[in-house]
């Protein structure tokens, strides 16, 4: 159980980092309209590409919402040990992971530019996905011990 608690804490921290990253990009988007173009870096190319918006809103905003949601759910689970919340922690990070994988693909093979903030987001969402694996594994362990007692 303690290990599960630890993983949930890491989950909370990583969600928070992802939230910070995506929020920063969102705020930059709305405040500065454009990031300056830095030599050999492609952030402005990525954040102004046709792929950077979905339904008129910047992708970074969806990212921030996703991480905030995961943050709230993980804190909620940490606080209440609520079973449906646990299911969300186990199964939702795969969507974040797939979305990130698609965005990295777009950056590498379609836009031909990598944005640091987007790469950080890919790392955090992948970490959440890996953590969700651990939760699934530990979760089933707890279930078994629960049946035995």
């Amino acid at each position, binding site marked *: 159980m303690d290990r599960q608690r630890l993983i949930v804490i890491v989950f909370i921290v990583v969600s928070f980092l992802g939230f910070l990253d995506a929020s920063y990009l969102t705020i930059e988007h709305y*405040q*500065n309209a*454009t990031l300056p173009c830095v*030599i050999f870096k492609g952030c402005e190319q990525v954040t102004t590409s*046709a792929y950077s918006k979905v339904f008129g809103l910047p992708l970074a905003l969806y990212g921030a919402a996703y991480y905030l949601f995961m943050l709230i759910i993980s*804190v909620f689970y940490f606080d209440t040990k609520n079973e449906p919340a646990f299911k969300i922690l186990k199964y939702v990070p795969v969507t974040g992971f797939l979305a990130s994988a698609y965005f990295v693909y777009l950056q590498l093979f379609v836009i031909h530019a990598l944005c640091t903030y987007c790469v950080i987001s890919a790392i955090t969402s992948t970490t959440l996905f890996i953590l969700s694996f651990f939760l699934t594994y530990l979760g089933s362990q707890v279930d078994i011990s629960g049946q035995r007692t």
Partner: protein
Amino acid sequence: MENNQNLSKKELYEINRVAKKNAAETAAKKKRAKSAIIWSVVGLLVVGSVFGLIILANRSSDPGPSPIITTAVSPDDLTVGNKDSKNILIEYSDFQCPACKAYHPLVKQLIKEHGQEFLFVYRHFPLPQHAQAKPAAYASEAAANQGKFWEMHDMIFDKQTDWAEKGNADEIFRKYAEALKLDMTKYDEDISLPAIENKVSDQYKSGVANFVNSTPTFFLNGKKIQPRSYEDFVKLIQEANG
């Protein structure tokens, strides 16, 4: 204990029940307090960090001590404004850079309203990741050879999204040249002149020598400035005027 013995079973049961109830209530209270603390901390962290990020993104970034660059305006330089002014505003810019496009109207307005107070110099800094930045620079220089650099410059920036991602940007620039009623025979000759290519690459090198690593980069009288708005520009120009 003796008292307990005197109590009936029913009374004992009642005492136990109340004790259990109290214990449960205390536990529930503790749990509520713990939840309240957890959620307050998380709430404060989230709200606080969003405010922090807004300030971070909005701060009038301090350029810090920057090297004083050579302000020497070469005869080759593309200038507009007051040639006799002691104030020289140099922009290192990339036609394909969205941030340069975003600054374009500010600079245009500044020249229109305060053009007597400074000389504006435009220098090419086509970034390697922008495939069409160099062709755009060449097109603007070909127009410059016919005295229409600023018209071409405006057109290229205004229509940036029309050509930035296209493979046939060259043809699009040619259409702009036609629209500006340039002599197209001369334009077609000039566009591939080594002189133009060299000029653009020399300006790029001068930017690198002056520690330019992003666009747009502005220098006012040799000092790097980072204006975030039109008002910032006006303030900086007025400060320079003393």
